[in-house]
């Protein structure tokens, strides 16, 4: 008889046979304690494998950096730096390129209103004197570094909270559809399909305009447009688990549906949900940036998307103020990339099929 690898679903790495009974004192602990000890060891093993994955470790490093910056924002840059606007006369440019000490001049592309030609002119910088702007300033004279640091808070927060909401909705719907089947599945799947198919930007715009512009609403919008992918994934996995013999055994023992879902289905779904969550955070951050860029974000809060929006509005993209656009852009890219790399690493560890032999 062929001995198939009997578990094709994602698992956290389990100890090899040589590990049996190692260093666990059976006599003095209850079986429950022992099980928890085993779970902790499985987690340590997972961590070890994660560390060996270079992509994942790099991603985690970058992420931790950003998270640290976001948490320690008040210690790094004063809040006032994001709101204080160095008022000047209307036509006076106050932009400062990175590493700039003011007052100095800088080069700007200007379009001649009569001929339509572009030519460069030299303009004096009137940003706050004796200030060092490591990343330059935006059009209102605010340090981009400060904006970045404080913007990290909003972007990461929105990304995380929206993802958690999307995960909860998506997993709940996916499990219900996959496990119960029948009409429940038909109805929920069609609902999921609807949300999958609809162009999310259109939906987001409509929702944002209906709900109004606030931080909470942005979170809602992102959550509503991203749960469907998770639901689809979770449903597929729940379907396979629901038909496994050990689920039938639980039924034969007399278990209720709730018992089966919490004790058998969810634990087996957890790795997939975990990997998917990480990847969804990346997408949520991107989504939030997009929405803010389109002007749907909270006008009172600063996020990387709103920085981009203001840069676009002030013509920085064509005006040569590259630092105004690049700073938030690179930050968004870095965070999204970091989350994605982590997510792939977790997926590779938890899903044996993806591992290279």
């Amino acid at each position, binding site marked *: *008889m062929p*001995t198939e690898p009997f578990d094709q679903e994602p698992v956290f790495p389990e100890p090899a046979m040589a590990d049996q009974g190692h260093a666990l004192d059976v006599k003095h602990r209850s079986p429950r304690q022992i099980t928890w000890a085993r779970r902790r060891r499985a987690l340590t093993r997972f961590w070890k494998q994660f560390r060996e994955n270079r992509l994942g470790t790099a991603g985690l490093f970058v992420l931790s950096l950003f998270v640290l910056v976001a948490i320690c924002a008040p210690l790094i840059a004063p809040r006032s730096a994001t709101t204080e606007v160095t008022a000047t006369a209307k036509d006076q440019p106050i932009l400062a390129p990175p590493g700039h000490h003011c007052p100095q001049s800088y080069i700007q592309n200007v379009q001649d209103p009569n001929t339509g030609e572009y030519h460069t002119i030299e303009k004096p910088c009137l940003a706050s004197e004796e200030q060092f702007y490591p990343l330059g300033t935006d059009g209102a004279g605010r340090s981009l570094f400060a904006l970045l640091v404080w913007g990290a808070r909003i972007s990461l927060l929105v990304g995380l909270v929206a993802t958690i909401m999307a995960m909860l909705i998506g997993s709940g719907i996916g499990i219900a559809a996959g496990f119960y089947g029948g009409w429940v599945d038909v109805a929920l799947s069609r609902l999921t399909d609807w949300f999958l198919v609809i162009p999310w930007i259109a939906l987001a715009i409509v929702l944002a305009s209906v709900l109004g512009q606030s931080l909470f609403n942005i979170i809602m919008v992102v959550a509503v447009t991203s749960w469907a992918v998770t639901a689809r994934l979770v449903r597929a996995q729940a379907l396979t688990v629901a038909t496994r013999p050990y689920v039938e055994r639980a039924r034969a023992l007399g278990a209720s549906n709730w018992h089966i879902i919490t004790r058998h289905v969810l634990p087996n779904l957890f790795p997939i949900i975990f990997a998917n969550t990480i990847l969804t955070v990346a997408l949520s951050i991107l989504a939030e940036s997009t929405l803010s860029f389109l002007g749907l974000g909270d006008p009172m809060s600063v996020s990387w998307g709103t920085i981009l929006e203001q840069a676009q509005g002030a013509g920085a993209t064509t005006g040569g103020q590259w630092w105004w656009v690049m700073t938030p852009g690179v930050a968004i890219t870095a965070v999204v990339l970091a989350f994605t790399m982590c997510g792939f690493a977790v997926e590779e560890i938890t899903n044996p099929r993806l591992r290279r032999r």
Partner: protein
Amino acid sequence: MSLLEIRDLHVAYSTSAGPVPAVRGVDLDVERGQVVGLAGESGCGKSTIAGAILRLLPKETKVEGQILLDGEDILTMTWGRLRAVRWEESSIIFQGAMHGLDPVKRVGEQIAEAILIHDPKVTEKEALTRAGELVEQVKLPARRTQDYPHELSGGQKQRIMIAMALACDPKLVIADEPTSALDVMVQAQVLDLLEDLQRDLGLSMIFITHDLSVLVGVCDRISVMYAGKIVEEGSADAVFETPKHPYTRALSSAFPEIGDERYRLLPTGLGGDPPDPMDIPSGCSFHPRCVDVFAPCPSTEPVLYDAGEGRRAACLLLDGAERAAGEG
């Protein structure tokens, strides 16, 4: 000269945990027109031998020894010659073969594919006609070539796999558990078919299974494998009726004769599991599970001792007289 001669075959798979010895020194002979049975359970190495004969094992696997098919050494053949040998000289019916059919192609095309690969001069139409002939040879109506795999039952799919194995008129057919997944009656039909084909076409066969009672009707000779080595060999009837090795005895009592009072309400079996190839016991690899175990077993590795007319068994008990003399 035998059709197939395997000499001192050693196969070790390479895994992340190190090399895993699957076959540890096996000699096997198959004469022309002979059916040899290879009996054993999971992990004993029999399927590995099947793969080794046609060099179908993964690239990193270490294969040592000699496999002479009609005088040519398979292990040192050039790639081109090997491809010609595969299917034309020797073909294989895989374990779980019924799942080896492409679900989106008609079965006739799949049989024809084997023919076309080996003879590019044959046209597609000719190949399909030949496929129809083969299907009739396995006692199915020729129009079945138009069916898709899902339209066929388990037994019918197995017959298609047999037809495929015969596509290029091989001299040696290796059947790896061809009836394990089938019902008793269908199994009987397929075994009868294999017997008829073997007789009519003069095929040599290697029949691999864990069910000793199946082998006794089909095979001329049986070799029993355990933990990568052959532990008993002899003519089929002799091995089945009077097993000399304790493992063979245990294996045959797992499928007792119905009506035999000795087994009524007295199932016999061995404790433990067949050994993990990574962790083979010292000395005689069977000693932890053996009912007849005695002093030298854990430390001395037995070889195949003479046990009668054309019979050999790797049990130290057979070596009794010589050992006593040696230690005395």
